[in-house]
Every structure is written in structure tokens, then in C-alpha cells.
């Protein structure tokens, strides 16, 4: 047990992860002049052939994690681009068939903003409300499907809450209706099982930097049987069977492949380790009063623990926790002071939404770090509540919802 914990303690794995040293080592082989730096599209020399071979090996490693055919993997610059490609690519290709799309209010911005762009182009989008625990009610989803629905997009694991949607069941609703089903799996790959030989998912987005791979590389699974077509969004030399042009970044792809290989080999081990630590963290704070879990621990990945501490303002809490790197809401939206749209979609009132912290842990998190975090959090909560007039009122038994606040 080391006493040299890296400070701050990193508990923001859902925002990004460190590159696994094994992944970095593999990548460096493709970054040096002695290594394989060729353009994989160069057909005329071994520099190109070796680079191409490495790319194809990585493609297989990714396909193996999700039980797909390597030919169904299209490399992109990340999950954001994959989401854009899937949603816009399908919408534009199948626009004559229909112009209705169904998604949820808790999707990542890459999905929501792509949908909003399509709305500007004349498509109609239904944004489903989640249940209070973040899960989508399948009956409500089914009720939203129409004759002119061409696409459903529901993320597998939510980045803020960690809840796992039943994508297998959703696929059973969409496939018989001839509706394409896209799943953003950026937060689920390597954390929970994905079997595309049984799940009726047509398109699936992946990110490397969420599972110990490098930033700037991702993939989109595009099913071949039954065949899914899409309009390419990036045109050029026709790479990736015409679905995504642009020189392939060999070192990035090799890194992603290695990260996925490790994830497949170590999924059980990682999950057991992270579950144990998540339980430890939760046990360390659950006895504090007015603590609420956002999400659903039973139906969520253990990597994410999203907690609201009532009567404590979220930004103040984060500032008090300066020795722990966490986030309130998602990284993408943390620049603004708006409360998380995901928590708002759950029906959390503004106060609780503002007082939430997302702890997201991972492969390299240690028990010692958890214990330090617990200790910091408890101290910070105690101090902030001591200073909080709302906490005083609560302790006195005043029902805050009945208070008439006077303006000064």
C-alpha cells in the first residue's frame, strides 16, 4: 500500500481516462522513425502495408470485444464524430423513407446537437423523458414509434448517471418495424457486456479515451446483415469503404485496438475491482443525512457514482474538494453554470441538480484513494452544511417548500 497518492486524486474517469501503459507502449512503436509510420493507404511499399496490417489487426480487436465482424467497424476521430455520422448519415440516407427520429433527453450532446441540426433541416425528433432513475420506459418508447420513424438513438450507459439501458429489448422493438437503432456505447464498452451477434443494434459508437486508450480516435459499428446504409459525412479518398475519408492514424488505431483487447481480457477483473471500490465509497458517505443517488446502482455500471448532497451547493463542494478531481454534470457542459440537463430531465429540482457530484472511478483507482476521498467529502460536507442557512432550517424542521422567500 503506497502512501504516495497522486494529488489530486483522480475520480473523473467518465470525462477521460489515463492511457494504459500497455497501450502507450504499443502506440509508440507506430510513432517513431524506426517504427511503422507509413500511410496505411500507400499500396506501393512495406511502410504502407505494415501500417495497413496493424490497422486491420486493431479493427479485429475492436470487433472481438463486441462480437461483430471487423468489416463492420469504421474508424472515426472519436465518439462525437461517430454519433454525428450515425445520426446524420442515416437521416440523410433514409430521408425519403421517413423523417422522424426518437431519442432521449439524457443522451450525450453529440447525439442531441446532431438531432437539433436535423430538426433545422426539417426532421422531427421526439425526445423521451427518462424515469426518475434515468432508465427509459420501453412502453413509452414503443408508443413513440410511428410509421415514419427511421431511427431510434438511445445510449447504452449514461455518462453522468451510469445507468444501463436495456438495448437488447429496444432492438426487439425496432427491428420488426424496420427502424434503425443507434446506440452510443462510449461509456459502456469494456464495462458491461455487448454482444452484437444477439443484440439487434444497427449502429454503435465507440470512444477510445473512455477505456484507457488515446483521445482522438473512435469507431462506428455499421451492421452488414441486415445491411445498414448511410450517407458519408467526410468525403475524400474513399477510406473505410467510402464511409469515412481521411488518412488513418495508425498509432491511434493501434492504441484503440490494444485498449479494446485489454478491456475484453480484463472486463471481469476491472468490474470486480471497481464494484468493490464503488461500494466502499458509497458506504463511506451514505450515512450522511440527505444524500441521494442519481441513477440506479442495481442497473448501473459501478464506474459512476452520482450523488446529490442536499443543502450543499455543488460548485462550492467541488472547490472544497480541491484534492479530488471530480465533476458536477458532464465535462462537455461544465463550462456553463447551468445545472446538468441530465439531472433536470430526471425531474430533480434545481437545488438537488446543483448539489450533485459525479465520482467516476476506474482501473487504476486504489482503496487508499477511496478512503481519502471519503474523508475529504465528509469533512467538506460537514463544513459547508455548518455554513448553510438552508441546512439550519432543515434541521429545525422547517419545510422549505412552504417558505415564502422575500426579495430584498
Amino acid at each position, binding site marked *: 500500500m503506497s502512501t504516495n497518492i497522486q494529488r*489530486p486524486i483522480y475520480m*473523473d474517469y467518465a470525462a*477521460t481516462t*489515463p*492511457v494504459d501503459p500497455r497501450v*502507450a507502449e504499443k502506440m*509508440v512503436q507506430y*510513432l*517513431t*522513425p524506426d517504427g*511503422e*509510420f*507509413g*500511410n496505411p493507404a*500507400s*499500396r*506501393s*511499399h*512495406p*511502410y*504502407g502495408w505494415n501500417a495497413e496490417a496493424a490497422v486491420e489487426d486493431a479493427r479485429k480487436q475492436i470487433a472481438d470485444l463486441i462480437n461483430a465482424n471487423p468489416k463492420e467497424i469504421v474508424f*472515426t*476521430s*472519436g*465518439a*462525437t*464524430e461517430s454519433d*454525428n455520422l450515425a445520426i446524420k448519415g442515416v437521416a440523410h440516407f433514409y430521408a425519403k423513407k421517413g423523417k422522424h427520429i426518437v431519442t432521449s433527453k439524457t443522451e450525450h*450532446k453529440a*447525439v*442531441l*446537437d*446532431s438531432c*437539433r441540426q436535423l430538426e433545422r433541416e426539417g426532421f422531427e425528433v421526439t425526445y423521451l423523458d427518462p424515469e426518475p432513475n434515468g432508465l427509459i420506459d420501453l412502453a413509452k418508447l414503443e408508443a413513440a414509434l410511428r410509421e415514419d420513424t427511421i431511427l431510434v438513438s438511445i445510449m447504452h450507459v449514461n455518462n453522468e448517471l451510469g445507468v444501463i439501458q436495456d438495448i437488447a429489448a429496444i432492438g426487439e422493438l425496432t427491428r420488426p418495424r424496420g427502424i434503425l437503432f443507434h446506440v452510443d456505447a462510449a461509456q459502456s464498452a469494456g464495462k458491461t457486456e455487448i454482444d452484437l451477434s444477439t443484440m439487434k443494434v444497427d449502429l454503435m459508437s465507440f*470512444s477510445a*479515451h473512455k477505456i484507457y486508450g*488515446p*483521445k*482522438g*480516435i473512435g469507431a462506428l459499428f455499421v451492421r452488414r446483415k441486415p445491411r445498414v446504409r448511410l450517407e*458519408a*459525412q*467526410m*468525403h*475524400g*479518398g*474513399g477510406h473505410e469503404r467510402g464511409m469515412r*475519408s*481521411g*488518412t488513418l*492514424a*495508425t*498509432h*491511434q488505431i493501434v492504441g484503440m485496438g490494444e485498449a479494446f483487447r485489454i478491456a475484453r481480457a480484463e472486463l471481469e477483473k476491472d468490474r470486480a475491482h471497481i464494484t468493490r471500490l464503488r461500494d466502499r465509497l458509497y458506504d463511506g458517505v451514505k450515512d450522511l443525512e440527505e444524500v441521494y443517488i442519481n441513477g440506479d446502482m442495481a442497473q448501473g455500471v459501478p464506474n459512476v457514482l452520482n450523488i446529490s448532497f442536499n443543502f450543499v451547493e455543488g460548485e462550492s463542494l467541488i472547490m472544497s474538494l480541491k484534492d479530488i*478531481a471530480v*465533476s458536477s454534470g458532464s*465535462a*462537455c457542459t*461544465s*463550462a456553463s453554470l447551468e445545472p446538468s440537463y441530465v439531472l433536470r430531465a430526471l425531474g430533480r429540482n434545481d437545488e438537488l441538480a446543483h448539489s450533485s457530484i459525479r465520482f467516476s472511478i476506474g482501473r487504476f483507482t486504489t482503496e487508499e484513494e477511496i478512503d481519502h476521498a471519503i474523508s475529504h467529502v465528509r469533512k467538506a460536507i460537514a463544513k459547508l452544511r455548518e455554513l448553510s442557512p438552508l441546512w439550519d432550517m432543515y434541521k429545525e424542521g422547517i419545510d422549505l417548500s412552504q417558505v415564502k422567500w422575500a426579495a430584498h
Partner: protein
Amino acid sequence: MFDSATHGDPGVVYLDNNATTALDQRVLAAMLPYLQAQYGNPSSGHRLGRQARAAVDRARQQVAALVGVHPSQVVFTSGGTEANNLALKGVAQRHSPGLMASSVVEHSSVLAPLAALQGAGWELARLSVDADGRLLEESLQAALARKPVLLALMAANNETGIVYNTGPVAQQARDAGAVVLVDAVQAAGKLPLDFATSGAHLMSLSAHKIYGPKGIGALVVDKAVDMAPLVHGGGHEKGRRAGTENVAAIVGFGRAAELAAAELEARRRRVGELREHLESRLVAELPGVAIFGQRAERLPNTSFFALPGLDGETLLMTLDQSGIAVSSGSACGTGDVEPSHVLMAMGVEPGLARSAIRASLGKDTTRDEVDRFVDCLKAQAQALQGLGAMACAVSG
């Protein structure tokens, strides 16, 4: 500064730098921390995130300095292809379909998006070139008279190396009300580039052509240009390009840009001399050799030539077997056996075009490697012509 060529097997000679370049060791050194301890997401508020953000900001300044702009004008993309796609489609989205103009010798990452736009109702005006690859004035004027929304002209061609003086063309295009895209992917790092002088409203750049990593590029923008984003979600790059920043690659791009700016003159001079040496040997020792674009100003590193009667693809294979890496035309287009669209546009006879070989020298290419290439070429040419000379063996 000039490391001896360490790429791969010491017996192998890499002369395909327009396809891609080896990562400079100094660039790798700058990147490594961002593949290891410095893994923060720049959008995160905590210290690790802020450090990543600072690294991105520094790199943005370095890329901006390469072309003489303010950092806020640099939009990072996943490469040159995406930068061109963003420029063309981003501008198109802000207009109802009209006319787009481009030269016929543009890279596929410009021509293919234009073809896609054509499918969506846009018209294309093509600026033709003469036998020397130079833009035909009548062609340009005819296009401008039709008031194109956008005009795309590359700063230098990847196959022939021919340099296009975009400034005067851009000025005329601007006068006609067009937005100007200058694809500077091949020119950057080989020639001095100045955004203002180029006349561009939009300029594309790519890291892996200047000894930086693959997977990162930039679109340099005149902020007055109305351009829609292509990748939505999260608002990164001031709403111009969403997605978690590839910090390591961005840092690498910045360092590569910094080195390119600092070493530009020295690289240019050195590689220019080597190319001259290469071509004087070709002319002296390979009778009948045709060098494309020789009469035009060219990038200092590129030699695109043909040995009449010899099939280019076959020659490539035999050269490769002897340890020489070159190409015929662009990397992207390989896999099909069509002759180069650039040579076709220059009116080169298809048979000759099929004999084309492109040698693109790098900053670390040695004179010895150039000599070995020509020696091998001679041997292969003779062998293929059935004159019985021994195929060359490149020994270590």
C-alpha cells in the same frame, strides 16, 4: 538537426514524404507526457483538465504562428480531409445551392465533398490548367463571371508539387464575392505561408505532412466567414468543431508547426539541392525521362516523372522489392488503376501518365539515398526493358 535517416530498416529508402512523414523525435517527446501522466480532458475544471487546456492553447498559438494568424482563428480537426470538408460543406450550408469553383487538380478531399454538394443541387465550375499545370486565365474568368459562392485552390499540388500563387487569384475571387479556400496541406512547412498574403478566407493544414502525428489538422478561418459546423455536440472549438480534444496530437501538431517555421529555410534549401541533384541525374542518365511540371514553380521536395514505356505500378513494385519507397500519384487514390487526374488535367497522354512515379524527399533524406534511388531506377528500367542488367540490391 539533420538526423541521419533512421526510418525502418537502414537498407530501405523512404521517398514518399508527400504521402506521410516520419514523426520528428522532438515532436514525439512533446507528445509523450500527454499519452501518460497528463491525461486530463481540457473541458474538465480540475487541475489536470486545466493543464490539458493550457497545452492545447499553447499548441494553438504555435499553429497560428506558422501561417501568421491569431490563435482564435485556428480550428482543430481530425486532419486535412476534415478541414476541407468543413470549409466546403460548412460554407455551403449557409447558402442556398449555387455555384462552387475549384481547380481540376485539387486533392480528393476537396473534389469529393464538391461532388457530394453537386448531388445536393450545387453546380461546379472547374478551373482548367495548361500542360505546365498552370491555371488557365479564361477558365478562371469564366468561373468568376458566374459569381461562385466559394472558390477552392490548393497552394501546392501533392502529386506534381506545382505551386499555385493563390494571392492574385484569391483577390479576383474576393472581388467577385466568393469565399476562398486554400488547401495548404502540402505547402505548409515546405514554403513560407502567410494567411493574409494567400488571400484565403479558409486554409487547411495537416500535421502528418510536417513530421507531426496523423489524426490532427486544422482549418484556419477568417472569422467573418459564415460557416456551419459539421460535427455537433459539446461546443468545443467555439462551437466550430465538437469532440474531446486529442490533446497529445494537438501538442504534437504545435511542436511540428514550431519546428517547421524555425527550420523552413534550411529545410527548403537542403531538400531543393537534393531534388536538383536527383533530376539532373534523371535527365543525364535516363534518356527520354519526362518530368512533370518542370517549367512551373514547384515544391522543393517533389519530383513527379515518367519513364516512357515502363508501367508505373510495375516499376513501383520492383523498386519496393529493392527497398525504395515511392509512389505513383497520391496515396489515397491507390487501389485503382486510373491514371492520375492531375496529369490527365494537364493533358498528359494516358500511357505516359501510367508510367508516372513520384519521389517526394524529406527533411532528413540524404544525398546517398537519392543516388541509390537513381541507381536502382536505372537498373530496374533496364531490366524491365529487357536489356538484362542486374536488378539493384540495396545493401545496408
